């Protein structure tokens, strides 16, 4: 069974991000100037980053709660204080370093399963490019961020990379937490 975070992410992809991406792919026409098309593309980049960060925060919370439920009631709040203090994903962008630091708190090396897959390096590179593009848009840098082109082709690649990382991360945490608690975590 997928986590609530994954169900929400899938719903977001289907109902919000994909229609927005399709809008970005549409040809420039009399109703849609090149400037507007560029604005929509930039909006998509920020939305993608925001929703991906939302998924990560939701998944982290679900992971914490799956462990909290097997604890005595009096110990739960102390564990939650530890889990939510100084979270990187609360204030930072969904960079791989931030994801790794937060999810490694559960007692695993989250990078390890990613290292064993040949396509992982490409995925994490694309995630890095998305974050750079997101910052360029959010901070209104007009020039291309370090040579990263913000176009519909890259946006589609970043969207796919986020989706693949989301599924992989959920799968890794599912397996890890099931081993710890002896039952499905969600």
């Amino acid at each position, binding site marked *: 069974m997928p986590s*609530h975070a994954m169900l*929400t992410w899938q719903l*977001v992809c289907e109902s919000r991000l994909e229609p927005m991406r399709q809008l970005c792919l549409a040809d420039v026409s009399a109703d849609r100037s090149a400037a507007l098309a560029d604005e929509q593309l930039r909006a998509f980049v920020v939305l993608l980053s925001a929703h991906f960060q939302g998924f990560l925060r939701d998944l982290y919370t679900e992971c914490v*709660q799956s462990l909290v439920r097997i604890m005595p009631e*009096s110990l739960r*709040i102390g564990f*939650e204080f530890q889990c*939510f203090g100084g979270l990187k994903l609360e204030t930072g962008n969904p960079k791989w370093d931030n994801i790794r630091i937060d999810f490694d708190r559960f007692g695993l090396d989250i990078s390890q399963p990613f290292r064993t897959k040949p396509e992982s390096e490409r995925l994490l590179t694309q995630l890095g490019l998305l974050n750079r593009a997101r910052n360029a848009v959010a901070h209104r840098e007009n020039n291309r961020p370090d040579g990263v082109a913000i176009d519909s082709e890259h946006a589609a690649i970043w969207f796919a990379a986020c989706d693949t990382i989301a599924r992989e991360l959920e799968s890794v945490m599912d397996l890890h937490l099931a081993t710890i608690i002896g039952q499905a975590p969600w």
Partner: protein
Amino acid sequence: MIASATPRIANGSHVVIKHTNGMQARVVEFRGALGPEGTHIYRLRFGSKSRPRYVEVREDQIEWSPVESRSRSKVNSETSIADSVR
């Protein structure tokens, strides 16, 4: 976040965190039905205004603070939020 769940505690509500010697906090975000069996999770802010800290807890881990209870005359201040909304 997209969730079908509807928050039962409004943002800004004053609550007391159970098992903490009466630590008071404010609800700052409804995180959704992310707990076991769809339990509602709330993000709370506590500590000083200059250095706020945050934690996410289940609905059954908090109860109305005395401040909030006074403005909710029909709700018994000894009952948890989870009990009072059932």
